[in-house]
């Protein structure tokens, strides 16, 4: 249910971008999705196929997902560490005053159009 909502936003933005670029068909959409964005790629792809095929401009259009690793920052020892492996606790110094730097975004990187 969550992923379907996200798909509707992707479709809206892709259609807008296509119109702005004078494009009538899109064959591929490349997404950059953060590791901790709470999106399940398999569900997103299923929802995409169902919803995109209902849009003439996007029929058969492939959704490609690039995963962006999540990285946290430790305020105590001023170092970065991978969020998924270590969670809230810094592996360098054991502090819990850590913050997510990146890896929760959902971004449309580019669209591919048949030339």
């Amino acid at each position: 249910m969550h992923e379907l909502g996200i798909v509707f936003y992707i479709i809206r933005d892709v259609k807008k971008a296509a119109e702005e670029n004078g494009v009538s068909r899109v064959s591929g959409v490349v997404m950059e999705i953060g590791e901790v964005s709470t999106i399940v790629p398999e569900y997103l792809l299923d929802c995409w196929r169902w919803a995109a095929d209902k849009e003439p401009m996007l029929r058969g259009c492939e959704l490609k997902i690039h995963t962006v690793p999540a990285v946290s920052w430790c305020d105590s020892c001023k170092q970065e560490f991978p969020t998924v492996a270590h969670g809230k606790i810094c592996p360098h110094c054991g502090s819990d005053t850590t913050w997510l730097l990146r890896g929760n975004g959902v971004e449309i990187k580019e669209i591919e159009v048949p030339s």
Partner: protein
Amino acid sequence: MDEVKVIEIKKSIFEDNDKDADLLRKELKAKGVFLLNLMSSPGSGKTTTLIRTLNLLKDKMRVAVMEADIDSDVDAVKILRATGVPSIQLHTGGMCHLDAEMTRQGLDNVAMDGTDLVILENVGNLVCPAEFDTGAVRNAMILSVPEGDDKPLKYPLMFSICDIVLVNKIDVLPYFDFDLEKCREYVRMRNPRARVIPICARTGEGVEAFAQWLDDEVTAWKKQ
């Protein structure tokens, strides 16, 4: 093989909504209307808490309620019957959250002029509503005791965007392994600014503190 042309977009899918939300907040400011976004899991006691709160505030200011649900109007009818406060039902049509555009459409159906406070009861869900800014001035959430004190660890984004966390159903604390101090600490880890108020919507305990917070916030929003 067919050649394809690549057009770079580089845009977050939340960007348009974030802009809409900021615009809506500006409009609310100009009209002197305070919008509260109330979120929680299904069954945490949002509607019961709301009824208690509305009965404390309705003689002090003009209040309206927007109930967002996937379907049905049971909540809007219940609120109206229990408080007399005008309440409209928004259907999200299967979507798990409200965005700023849907919130605006809802506000268009509320007689905003002269209304001091609009409370939006968001869809019961701890994931999606946190990602979509509704344009509300403040975000509140309810965490009920049976859900467990570790929810801030499991749904970090929700707790990081909330200004106030109501811990509801404290009358059943003796029957659950729910550690109120641990819960406060977990909330603090996610969001040091969030205020935590333990309440029991069934008996009314603690609801006055929430109503007072809301009263102060509405006054401050109108003055600024």
